[in-house]
């Protein structure tokens, strides 16, 4: 069964801390994505990557950066966490076959105090 694994399900961090959210997929997918989900705002794309060492900004990249050093791993970095980054973070991957049908991880619930 194909899997996208997010290393931390729940995190609590303090304002100003650096936060790393890790995502690993075992499907040899080229594409990887980071979304955040907030009530009433749906799924918003933060960053995505179509290949190793490549990254593209999504709709809300401010305050975030990403790293993709290996095909299977896509990390989301909050350089200095703020309370408005409290959210559910969802990683996804896809193989491009004409449409990006995403496989999502279980999510990482981040609370910034």
């Amino acid at each position, binding site marked *: 069964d194909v899997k996208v694994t997010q290393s931390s399900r729940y995190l609590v961090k303090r304002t100003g801390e650096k936060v790393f959210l890790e995502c690993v997929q075992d499907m040899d997918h080229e594409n990887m994505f980071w979304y955040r989900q907030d009530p*009433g705002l749906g799924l918003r794309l933060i960053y995505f990557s179509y290949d190793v060492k490549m990254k593209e900004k999504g709709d809300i990249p401010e305050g975030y950066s990403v790293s993709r050093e290996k095909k299977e791993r896509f990390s989301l970095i909050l350089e200095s966490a703020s309370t408005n980054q409290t959210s559910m973070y969802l990683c996804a991957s896809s193989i491009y076959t004409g449409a990006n*049908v995403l496989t*999502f991880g279980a999510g990482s619930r981040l609370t910034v105090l």
Partner: protein
Amino acid sequence: DQQVKQNSPSLSVQEGRISILNCDYTNSMFDYFLWYKKYPAEGPTFLISISSIKDKNEDGRFTVFLNKSAKHLSLHIVPSQPGDSAVYFCAASAIKTGNTPLVFGKGTRLSVIA
């Protein structure tokens, strides 16, 4: 501006009845549409999709209808079951423009009441 709109934030339906979730889009380049289902504290899971060359796609209790002229699609669940209670996201893709991310709506929370 929102390219994919789900105008109903929530919907309640009796068990056994039909659930109809609606989605509108504005970008005429979209040619592939998907529905995802999300339970609390889990990631979204793919439910069903439809290409713009079709106007209907069925998978068991789930049917998606596409009206290209109205830029509207709907997901029908018949019969609805309590386990269908979840948030449903509509998503769209423009295959013609290449490898581009899906665009999601804001979701509709479906509650199926026993």
